[in-house]
C-alpha cells in the first residue's frame, strides 16, 4: 500500500511540470490555432537561461521565476511577430512545419553554443527529502510542484479576473465576436503566444534543480505536452491541468506495475484511444458552443 501511495505521489509531482508546459501549449492552440511543435524546445531554452542566470548571479533558480518569465514573454512576443504571424493565414501544415523547423533550430543552436554535454545545477536541497505518512517527497520535486501550482493559480486568476485575461479567453472561444468587442486580435496572438512560451520556459525552470539540461531535453516533454493537451481538450486550460496530473499518474503506475520501459506506451495508448473515442478530450466537452 505504501508503494501505491508513493507511486501516485510520484505521478502527481511530475504531473505538475507537465501541466505548466502543456497549459502554455493549449493557450497558444486556443488563441492562435497553432499546434506548436517547438514547445519542448522553448522549455529547454528556459532551462538553459535559468541555469546560466542562477550560476551567474548565484541565486536559487526558484527565485528567478519572475525574471525568466519576463525574458520569455519578450522572446515569445518577438517570435510570434516575426515568424509565427507570417504563417497564420496559411494552412495549418505550414505552421506545423515552421514550428518543427524552429524546434530543430533551437536544439542545434544550443548544441552550438553550449555543446552537447549534460549540465546540472547544484542546489543545496537537491538530495533532501521529506517523509510524510510513509511517502517520500523529494525536496526539489516538491518545490517544483509548488511553483507549478502557484504559477497555474496565478495564470487562472489572470485569465479569469483581469481584462486582458478575459480578452484572451474570449479570443480563444470566439475570435470573431472578440474582434467585435474591440479586442485587437493581432495583439491577442502576440500576448497568448508569449504567455504560452513563458509557461514552457518556467516549466523548464522548475526542472533545473533536479533534472539535467541538454539540447534535446525538451523533446519528450514537448510530446507529453501534446498528449496532455489532447486529453484535456485543445484550448482548454483546466482540462490540461487535470490531464497533466493524470498523465503523470498513468506514467508512474505503468512504470510501477507493468514495466518501466513501457511507461510511455501506457501514455501513448491512452492518447490514441482518447483521440479516437473522445476527440473533444477526456473531460466533458466543455467547449461545445
Amino acid at each position, binding site marked *: 500500500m505504501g508503494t501505491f501511495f*508513493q507511486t501516485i505521489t510520484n505521478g502527481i509531482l511530475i504531473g505538475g511540470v507537465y501541466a505548466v508546459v502543456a497549459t502554455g501549449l493549449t493557450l497558444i492552440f486556443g488563441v492562435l490555432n497553432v499546434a506548436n511543435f517547438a514547445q519542448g524546445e522553448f522549455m529547454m531554452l528556459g532551462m538553459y537561461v535559468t541555469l546560466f542566470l542562477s550560476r551567474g548571479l548565484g541565486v536559487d533558480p526558484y527565485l528567478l521565476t519572475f525574471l525568466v518569465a519576463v525574458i520569455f514573454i519578450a522572446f515569445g512576443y518577438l517570435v510570434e511577430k516575426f515568424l509565427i504571424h507570417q504563417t497564420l493565414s496559411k494552412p495549418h501544415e505550414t505552421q506545423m512545419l515552421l514550428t518543427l523547423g524552429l524546434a530543430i533550430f533551437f536544439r542545434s543552436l544550443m548544441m552550438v553554443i553550449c555543446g552537447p*554535454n549534460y549540465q546540472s545545477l547544484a542546489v543545496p536541497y537537491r538530495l533532501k527529502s521529506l517523509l510524510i505518512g510513509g511517502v517520500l517527497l523529494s525536496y526539489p520535486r516538491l518545490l517544483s510542484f509548488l511553483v507549478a501550482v502557484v504559477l497555474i493559480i496565478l495564470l487562472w486568476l489572470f485569465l479569469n479576473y483581469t481584462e486582458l485575461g478575459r480578452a484572451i479567453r474570449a479570443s480563444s472561444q470566439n475570435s470573431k465576436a472578440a474582434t467585435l468587442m474591440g479586442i485587437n486580435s493581432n495583439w491577442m496572438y502576440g500576448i497568448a503566444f508569449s504567455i504560452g512560451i513563458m509557461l514552457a520556459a518556467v516549466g523548464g525552470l522548475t526542472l533545473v534543480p533536479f533534472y*539535467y539540461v541538454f539540447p534535446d531535453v525538451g523533446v519528450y516533454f514537448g510530446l507529453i505536452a501534446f498528449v496532455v493537451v489532447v486529453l484535456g481538450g485543445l484550448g482548454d486550460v483546466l482540462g490540461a491541468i487535470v490531464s497533466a496530473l493524470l498523465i503523470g499518474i498513468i506514467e508512474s503506475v505503468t512504470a510501477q506495475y507493468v514495466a518501466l520501459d513501457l511507461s510511455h506506451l501506457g501514455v501513448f495508448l491512452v492518447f490514441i484511444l482518447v483521440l479516437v473515442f473522445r476527440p473533444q478530450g477526456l473531460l466533458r466537452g466543455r467547449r461545445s458552443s
Partner: protein
Amino acid sequence: MSRRTTGLLLALLMIAVLTLSTTSIGAVKNVDVGLLATISGDLSEVGNMGANAVKLAVENINKNGGIKALGGAKINLIVGDTTSDFSQSVLVAQRLVNNNKLSGMLGAGVSGMALAVAPVLEKAKIPFLTAAIADNLTTLGYKYMFQFCPKGSQFGGMQADFLKYLQQKFNLPVDKVAIVYENTAYGQSTAKGIRDLCEKHGFNIVTEEAYPKNFTDAAPLVTKVRAAGATVIFPVSYTTDAALILSTMTAMNYKPVVIGGGAGFIWPEFYRSLGKYAEGVYSVGSWSWDTKFNLSDPEVVEAIKSWEKKYKTFMPEIAGEMYCATYILKEAIELAKSTDATDIRNALTKVKLTKGAGAMMQPGIVEFDEYGWNKHVHPTIIQWQNGVVKTVYPVEDTDNEIVWALK
C-alpha cells in the same frame, strides 16, 4: 525565391557534393587516419570525449616525432561526425573512406554506430579500431574489425565478482540484487552479463528493470527497486540517468550498495552534478587511469597529465580508451612500415604491446586474437573517492584501498 535562383541553388549543391567527393586532402608525408565519433545528437557526450582524446593523442604523437618507421611522418586526423543517427553514420564513413587514402579508422564507443559502419570498412579494407563493447562485434566474421576494449558481457561478470569480493572482505549480508539498465544496446548487453554471473555466484536477483533512456522521473524506478527489497543495485546508465537515479535514491533515503555499470557512473559530470553524494559509489569501467602499470609508464603519465591540463578533470574512461586506440594504430603502422591499410591490418593481428600508451588497457598488454579482439583485456572496478575515480579492483591492477562507506 525565383525559379532561377532555386535551380541555381540546386545545381550549386550538386557541384559542391561532386567537388567535395573528389578532392582528397593530405600531403605525401602524412599518414591519414580517420575517426568516427557521435559528435552531435543525443550520443554526443561520449562522441566528443572520445574525439578530444584522439586529437590529443595525435598532437602528442606528432610532437614526439611522428611515425618513426616512416621517417617521422605526421598523423593527419580526419574527423567524421557520424551523428547519433546510424543511417547517417554509414554515409559519413563512406565519405571518409572515399575522399582520403586512410591507413586506419578509429571509432568511439557506441555499439550501434560501430555495427552500422563495419560493412563499409570491411568492403573498403580499412582496419577499424573501435571502443564499442557489443559482444557480437568480433563474431560477425569481419576481418578488419579490431575491438581493443572489454566486451559488454565481461562488465557484468566483473561487477558480480566484485560483489563477491566485497561480501567476503567486509562480511556483507548482500543477497538481494537489483539490475536496472537503460534500454539501449549498451545497457542491454551489460545487463545480460550481470545476470549470468549473478546466477553463477548464487545471488538472488529480486528485480530487473529496463527503463527508457532520458526518462523524466526516476522515482518509479527507485520505488520499485526499494519495494523489491534490493540491498545491492547494479545500474547501467549514461550520465543523466545515472545521476538522476542516484539522486532520487538519496532523496528517497534509500541507500543500497551501488555498483554502476560504467559510462555515466564514471564520467566527470556524474560528480559535478552529485557532489559528495557520489562519494563511495562503485562502478565497473572499460578503463581507468590509475592502474598500477599506467602510473608506472611515463608515456601514459604524460597522456594523463596533458588531459588534466587541457580539460581540468581526470582522464575519463572513453577518453583513455580512444587515446590508447590511437597509439595502438600508431604501433601497427610502425610495425608495418607502410601506410597501406591492408599492411596495417596485418600488422595489427601481430602487435603485442606491453608498454607505452598503446598498452594502457588492463592488464597492460594489448594483443588481438584471431577474431580481432584484444584477448587479455578485462574491465576494472572504480570507486569515487574525493571527486575522482580510483581503481579498486581487480586487486592485481591496483594498490588503492576501498573506502568503506556503506552509509
